[in-house]
């Protein structure tokens, strides 16, 4: 089985936010929730870089380790998913997540948290694949259709890569070697314990 990962080649990202929009549209993500976002580092300065970030589907995911109700599980593809029926909206996964991936709908005027929502790597949830329930709770299940996450699939500069970790890491390494530079596979060290060497 593949070990699915995201890799954002920040040297290609043009901050068009199409990945963000595509994600929202594909999954009918509710107001106020962003499963994916683009952050610009050193904005306006020479050498600024934009990074598209969502859930990194970490190895030994911190969210899963701290969840008081054990609602997380990892699929055979290495995707970290959660069960919204079990989730109690305590916020612990957000406290533990290094990438700010978990989001909560505000369920009252006082802003207490509803059930957590995050990037599913376009692979739905524990409901039956491609069912209405799955779509309503978690959004589309493109993996079940044999497709990759939409954010990466439609990235105009092919900055955002999705797929098996070894393959996308190799693509990125080739790019770094060819063009002679790279700002790094953002989040990989934190999520998977090892960065990709960009000393090329």
């Amino acid at each position, binding site marked *: 089985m593949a070990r699915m990962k995201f890799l954002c080649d920040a*040297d290609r990202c043009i901050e068009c*936010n199409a990945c*963000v929009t595509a994600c929202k549209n594909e999954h009918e993500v509710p107001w*106020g929730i*962003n499963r994916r*976002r*683009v*952050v*610009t*580092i*050193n*904005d306006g*300065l*020479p*050498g*600024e*870089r*934009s*990074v598209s*970030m969502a859930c990194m589907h970490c190895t030994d995911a*911190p969210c899963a*380790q*701290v*969840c*008081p*109700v*054990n609602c997380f599980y990892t699929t055979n593809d290495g995707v970290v998913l959660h*069960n919204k*029926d*079990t*989730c*109690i*909206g*305590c*916020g*612990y996964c*957000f*406290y*533990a*997540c*290094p*990438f*700010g991936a978990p989001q909560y709908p*505000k369920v009252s005027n*006082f*802003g*207490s*948290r509803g059930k957590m929502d995050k990037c599913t790597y376009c692979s739905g949830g524990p409901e039956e694949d491609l069912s209405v329930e799955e779509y309503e709770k978690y959004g589309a299940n493109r993996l079940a259709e044999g497709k990759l996450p939409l954010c990466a699939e439609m990235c105009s500069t092919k900055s955002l890569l999705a797929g098996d970790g070894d393959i996308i890491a190799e693509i990125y390494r080739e790019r770094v070697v060819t063009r*002679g*530079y*790279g*700002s*790094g*596979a*953002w*989040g990989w*060290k*934190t999520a998977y314990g090892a*960065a990709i060497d*960009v000393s090329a």
Partner: protein
Amino acid sequence: MTRTTTRIIAALAAIGLGAGRAAAQSTEAINPTARSVTEGQLLDALKFGDTIRGRITIPNQSAADLEKPTNKVWMWLNLEVIDWVIIAAVLVTLAVVVIFYLRIGRLEIDKGRSGRTITRFNIFERVMHWTMASSFVVLALSGLNVAIGRYVVQPWLGEAAFGTATHWGKLAHNYLAWPFMLCVVLTFLVWVRHNMPSRLDIAWFKAGGGLLKNGAHPPATKFNAGQKVVFWAVVLGGSAVAVTGLALMFPYLLGSPLQWQAAQVVHALAAAGLIAMTIGHIYIATAGSEGALEAMTTGEVDVNWAEQHHSLWLKEEMAKGTTPRTPPTGATPAE
């Protein structure tokens, strides 16, 4: 062509030439990444608790935090420290209480019951105490469930039922926090004047609280030093869980991610302390000593009990002209 136009063209040409020269000069040295950020450098430069932060175009500004590797410290604290502190707080205190009961046993009223009683806590104090007590028990159990329920309860209930139960527990926790907080404030206001530390307290501790040394009855006012510890633990620990609890309950009104993390840690540790203390408090007030519980149930305590445990308070009450009550004839005191 006017002069002005000529001048403008000349100026533009000069600028163009200049720019061209500048570009030509730096072509050899152009390295698009020379000044660009790399993740490795940012991670190396990251101080504890810092985040790699940028600019974002969506309203949620906290999403501008790109990477917070030290969030794993919070995870570690919870899994490796707080969970164990909580488990220890419950098990160690229970063990101490059981050992105490087996080794020392129940503290009797030395002179036996006199049959005459005096009012120790009025109806307001008792309602306040039991409101706090009952809400605290639910808060403690639902809180323990969030902390360690997945190790202790979930294996029996299964994921779905445990999730539902914990969800209800969370609701109970959020709603019962309010009467609890109210009672913490009331307790402080009503009892603080009886709980100021005094020299008597040192003597009380030296005498082992009349518990460790047989026959020792250190003098005490309305509250002895041990009860004062309970009082201040409730007031200070209760305030700590209240303030941190509010930040956790209304995350979008109060605090930042770092503050929520700190709040969760303080909340869990203070609650563990309160739970341990409450176990001891319940033991001493029930199985641990004869005649103590009725102070909070009927509000009336036996005069001999009062003399033994709160001699100065009894003297004070008598000096005020309070007459001890005699229960109606025919009633036999318990035991």
